[in-house]
């Protein structure tokens, strides 16, 4: 008897519909085969299903069973075909009808339980897109899938429960609301508050602008001045993810299994700080079955690259496309995948190999030649894509005990307000913040008075700014105006923005 059960296949963050066909023959030697390009984890699913049936007090049929995952020409991976295969088998043997318009998805354990499985959000989104009403998923995933409105999410905790539901003995209630997801653990970085960082007023202001408009920033300064600390403090003022942003981020994280059991949407912006020995594949993504890299894991969040100059040239150059387009396309022999990668780059670096160039007390020991070689590591195209350039100076000891500055909470309020303004402004433009503005949007939303315009032109002649830099300054000025609740970009906003331009060194 042939039974068809609907499920999906995951390929990066894309989903493809898959029909799981289970045929139980009345003749032939008892075997259990799975065809349709299954990966090893799917091959092994027959052992899990056998044991689960036995431990659910069901007899596993001693018949020839063939399971096909159609379309049969795409590679399939993951452990979530356990549930559709088991349901198909149960239906074929016991004659229970598989409900229409339903997707099944989930890994089962030998004991008959249903385990948390990665990708539930992607499944739910697929279901909504295709107009499929019901999805049956592990109960540990139901919080994640339930954020998608308009579908019924059935959280399944064991095979026995599901089979009873299918045969009408009991009724599983669809998940109606998200039930206390586990508190996302506070990261150690969250504890760095701006008020605990002494001095460094200029850097703090620059970071506020960075958070306020999603602008890329580079901090250059000698060792031990607090570049890393300041960059980590940035986390404490980042605005929370909006709902649509959150779905984008959670899609990436669930595709690599980084959403915890019972977890729901991610509401904290990601903060990734890869070590500088990272490979280029680790940075943009890769592998035989391409998986997202750091640029995608920091989508809508912060990619912090400490010791920017120490990253290999290949890694730095791969950042060009994601920085410019907001996505990366990874092509491998098994196919090419696209991941979003709209992140805010926060880089920090020393000014020279020994680190003390321009330091007030420690003398720099580098020759001009070595400094030039060091500077050459920052490639022009990458530096040109960084909006805010800030020099960090050592804090004098006398300054250390002075009145503390604003708390992160106060700064965050301004940042959140500015971001809300931007969300409203760009509600029909498909972008979220000022740094993403295209030139068309700049013309639309950044009306400059003649005074402001002439100030910008004057300084662009005086400081030799590139065209890209010219537009970058307008974007920064827009953010500064948003932070100070100003409708228009005033001359003072523009003048402040010019201070953060890149310097020729």
């Amino acid at each position: 008897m042939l039974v068809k059960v609907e499920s999906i296949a995951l390929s990066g963050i894309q989903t493809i519909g898959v029909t799981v066909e289970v045929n139980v023959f009345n003749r032939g030697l008892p075997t259990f085969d799975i065809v349709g390009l299954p990966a090893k984890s799917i091959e092994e699913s027959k052992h899990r299903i056998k044991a689960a049936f036995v431990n659910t007090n069901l007899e596993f049929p001693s018949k020839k069973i063939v399971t096909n995952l159609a379309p049969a020409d795409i590679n399939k991976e993951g452990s979530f075909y356990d549930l559709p295969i088991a349901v198909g088998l149960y239906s074929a043997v016991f004659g229970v009808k598989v409900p229409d318009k339903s997707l099944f998805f989930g890994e089962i354990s030998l004991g008959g339980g249903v385990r948390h499985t990665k990708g539930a959000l992607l499944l739910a989104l697929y279901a909504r897109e295709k107009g499929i009403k019901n999805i049956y998923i592990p109960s540990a995933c139901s919080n994640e899938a339930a954020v998608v409105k308009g579908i019924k999410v059935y959280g399944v905790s064991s095979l026995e429960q599901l089979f009873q539901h299918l045969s009408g003995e009991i009724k599983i209630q669809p998940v109606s609301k998200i039930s206390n997801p586990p508190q996302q653990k506070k990261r150690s970085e969250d504890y760095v508050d701006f008020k605990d960082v002494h001095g460094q007023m200029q850097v703090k202001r620059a970071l506020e602008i960075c958070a306020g408009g999603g602008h890329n920033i580079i901090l250059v300064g000698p060792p031990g001045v607090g570049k890393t600390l300041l960059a980590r403090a940035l986390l404490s003022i980042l605005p929370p993810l909006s709902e649509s942003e959150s779905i984008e981020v959670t899609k990436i994280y669930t595709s690599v299994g980084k959403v915890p059991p019972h977890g729901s949407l991610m509401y904290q912006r990601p903060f990734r700080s890869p070590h500088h020995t990272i490979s280029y594949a680790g940075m943009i993504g890769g592998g035989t079955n391409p998986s997202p890299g750091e640029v995608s894991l920091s989508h809508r969040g912060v990619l912090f690259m400490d010791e920017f100059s120490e990253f290999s040239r290949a890694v730095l150059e791969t950042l060009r496309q994601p920085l410019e387009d907001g996505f990366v396309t990874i092509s491998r022999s098994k196919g090419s995948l696209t991941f979003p990668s709209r992140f805010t780059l926060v880089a920090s670096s020393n000014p020279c190999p020994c680190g003390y160039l321009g330091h007030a007390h420690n003398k720099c020991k580098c020759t001009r030649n070595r400094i030039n070689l060091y500077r050459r590591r920052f490639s022009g195209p990458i530096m040109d894509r960084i909006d805010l350039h800030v020099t960090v100076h050592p804090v004098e000891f006398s300054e250390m005990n002075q009145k503390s500055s604003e708390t992160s909470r106060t700064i965050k309020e301004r940042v959140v307000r500015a971001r809300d303004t931007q969300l409203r402004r760009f509600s029909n433009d498909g972008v979220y913040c000022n740094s993403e503005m295209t030139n068309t949007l700049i013309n639309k939303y950044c009306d400059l008075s003649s005074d402001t315009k002439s100030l910008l032109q004057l300084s662009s002649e005086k400081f030799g700014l590139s065209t890209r830099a010219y537009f970058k300054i307008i974007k920064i000025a827009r953010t500064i105006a948003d932070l100070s609740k100003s409708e228009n970009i005033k001359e003072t906003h523009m003048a402040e923005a010019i201070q953060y331009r890149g310097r020729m060194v």
Partner: protein
Amino acid sequence: MCGELTIENRTYPSSLKLIPNPPKTLYYKGFFRREIFDNCLGIVGSRKMSIYGKKALSRIYKTLNLKSLTIVSGFMTGIDSQAHKNALTSKATTIAVMPCGIDIIHPENQEDLYKNIIENGGLILSEYGGNLRPQLWTYPKRNRIVAGLSRAVLIVEASSESGSLITANLANSYGRKVFTVPGSIFSDTSEGCRQLQNSYAYGVSSGVEINEYFGLYNFGVFDSGEDMAALNGLDEKIVSSVKKEPATLDEISELSELSISELSSKITLLSINGYIEERAGKYYAC
């Protein structure tokens, strides 16, 4: 235009003939003429030019009588190349003495400057023909030519064991006048100048004394109190504070009691108007 001339040639610079071991042959590139050697001022200094050194140079150039002077230097990075550059921007003739064969440019990355010197009526000189690479021993040899050509030498920044001191000592032994620019006692590159000033060198703060030594006309006195009338109270406070000591934005902010964002926009306006300039995150008065 290039060529060579031997010590017997009558156009051979006479001041160079006077030193104990003049080069037998001089190779040159550029427009060679005898008058170019009449009033040579050697300007040399550290390869690690500080911002102080750069500002000192431009201050001195403002008052030097550059119509009648030729600036001689060693084409190295730092003070030397800055001396050439300033000479070119002030339309003065300048001579670069190379430590290598006449056919190569050292350091290579200064090719633009090299061409500029030749195009603007200056000279490239060397006592070595062909493409001899610079060696450790050719640098002090080159220095003797710089000292030998010059009637006076100005040392701008020098650490205690630098090639600039070799040039100064040679110039002194040839009976040429040595000028030096005093520097901060905290700066490493001022130590050599301080030592010189304690023995035979004469400290200068502008080009006036140098003009007088050459018997040249002083066409203006450097006015250190620039026109600040146009500035209002707060702007003037900012400018005069960085004039005293270069400061970071945080330091100025504390002094002027302005927030960083207000101050940043003020600083931009001041730098566009040429009162302040920024180097490596610190602000200097122009």
